[in-house]
């Protein structure tokens, strides 16, 4: 420490602490209004209202059956692949209705990518895995460059750059999941959805994925579903807690209980159900 008296540096402190932007300065990517999802007439999720902000990591936590996976799949039309699935309410993506009559699911999925719980690399070479998205979407200019950049952003390039032609199935579990992330990044999405991305991985691989999320949020908006609430606590800026309500006939429906900045959820949650869940008293 020097002998000169430094000035009071509140600004430096604020900047270094990476405070979240104030609510008025946040960019809304998704605006969810009264959303509900039902499978063959049975409601799985209802009355969800929240906003997803740009360059934030937003986590959905809650006990099993609370509809968080169902919810995240609404953002990229993946529920459409399940017969009997119906969406009620609206999701606006940058102001446009995501489920408008003219919306093409392919266009949606180009901008909103997804990483799944169990790594699902295609049974092809590492290169072909990452190149698949650009190829089917017609982004074939500078394919080599795209593949390299995607693998770099997924923190996998150094480990595979000498064996791009090797089968993707020869990678370890953690590497496979990073490959799936690279695959997703190669089509240059705006949003990355992650459905329990680390639950099939060992702790070291999990930490690497979490560090990756931290790095990626500078350029992407990330939404992650996790059943491990400590993981949500570590990586997420905003956390949404879902719980299960029992309706008549004992039917279980998911509902959104609380949605707030992560430190608040884990230090002073507003709802007692949230408190019970994060303290592990029920779940």
């Amino acid at each position, binding site marked *: 420490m020097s002998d000169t008296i430094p000035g009071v540096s509140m600004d430096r402190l604020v900047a270094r602490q990476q405070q979240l932007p104030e609510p008025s300065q946040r960019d809304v990517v998704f605006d969810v209004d009264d959303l509900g999802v039902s499978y063959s007439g049975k409601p799985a999720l209802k009355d969800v209202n929240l906003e997803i902000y740009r360059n934030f990591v937003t986590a959905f936590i809650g006990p099993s059956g609370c509809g968080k996976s169902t919810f995240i799949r609404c953002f990229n039309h993946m529920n459409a692949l399940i017969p009997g699935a119906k969406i009620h309410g609206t999701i606006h993506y940058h102001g446009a209705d995501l489920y408008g009559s003219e919306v093409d699911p392919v266009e949606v999925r180009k901008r909103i990518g997804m990483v*799944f719980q169990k790594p699902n690399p295609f049974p092809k070479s590492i290169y072909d895995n990452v190149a698949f998205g650009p190829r089917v979407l017609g982004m074939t200019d500078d394919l080599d460059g795209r593949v390299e950049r995607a693998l770099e952003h997924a923190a996998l390039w150094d480990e595979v750059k000498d064996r791009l032609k090797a089968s993707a199935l020869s990678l370890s579990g953690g590497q496979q999941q990073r490959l799936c992330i690279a695959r997703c990044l190669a089509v240059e999405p705006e949003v990355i959805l992650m459905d329990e991305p680390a639950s099939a991985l060992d702790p070291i691989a999990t930490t690497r994925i979490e560090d990756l999320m931290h790095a990626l949020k500078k350029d992407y908006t990330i939404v992650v579903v996790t059943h491990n609430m400590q993981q949500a606590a570590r990586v997420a800026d905003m956390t949404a807690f879902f719980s299960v309500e029992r309706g008549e006939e004992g039917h279980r429906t998911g509902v959104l209980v609380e949605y707030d900045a992560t430190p608040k959820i884990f230090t002073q949650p507003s709802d007692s159900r949230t408190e019970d869940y994060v303290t592990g008293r029920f779940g």
Partner: protein
Amino acid sequence: MSVTTLRAERPRGRTSSAVFKAFLYVSIGVGIATLGTLLITVVAKGWKYVDLVLLLEPPSADPQIAGARPAILATIYLGLLLIAFSVPIGVGTAIYMEEYANRDRWYNRLLEVNIQNLAAVPSIVYGILGLAFLVRGIGLGRVLLAGAMILTLVVLPTVIIAAREAIRAVPDSIRQGAYALGATKWQVIWRQVLPAATPGIATGSILALSRALGETAPLLLVGALTYVSFDPTILGDFTALPVQIYQWVARPQEDFRVLAASGIIVLLAILLTLNAFAIWIRNRYQRKW
């Protein structure tokens, strides 16, 4: 705890285990013995006449110079046509049933049941079908093409079932991953599902093919002549190796019986090669999902 307490109290299951094992060995023995006997008798009998004459010369009344060339060529043509017809139709049907069909609709369920049943229909029924509709009905005549079309029908259910199994074996996670990247349904099928299912489809098709090449009854009905001394063409008269063998067996001379055995050796060689090829493909491309 001493060693004595760990020893088995009574050899309770021992006897039944031993009996069961003996039964298994006997079963294998019967199978191997039968097959072995068949092979050895045929080879011993027919080996004499397995030479280039057999392969390159047309049949004749003189067993010394008789060959099976037209029959071998016809069998090869039949095989190629069979693949050309049955694989696209079979795989296409399998794709429809696995990827597009809505199982709740009655016609799809009907289709499902139909195909299972058709696989069990005796091949001679197809022969009659061919005679009625192809040879006579549309006037195709008793030609190689008709034979190929009939054999296609014979093997089609098997190809469809094999292709469906191969397509079903592709995990859904692969499809989901491809959809999530923005692929259309067709792109998912063409670029992910089919390439991944290809080894299974290939294996199934080759096995179906090797069954078809041994068929005699439908070919006879559709007009395979028993004596053909010229090289076959697609729209001409034809015979096939099984038919040729049948014809030789029917002849009185002992030499022709030997020739028949030689023909069987050739046919077996073709079938075994095809089957070995199918097994090789299956092993080479075996996937651990």
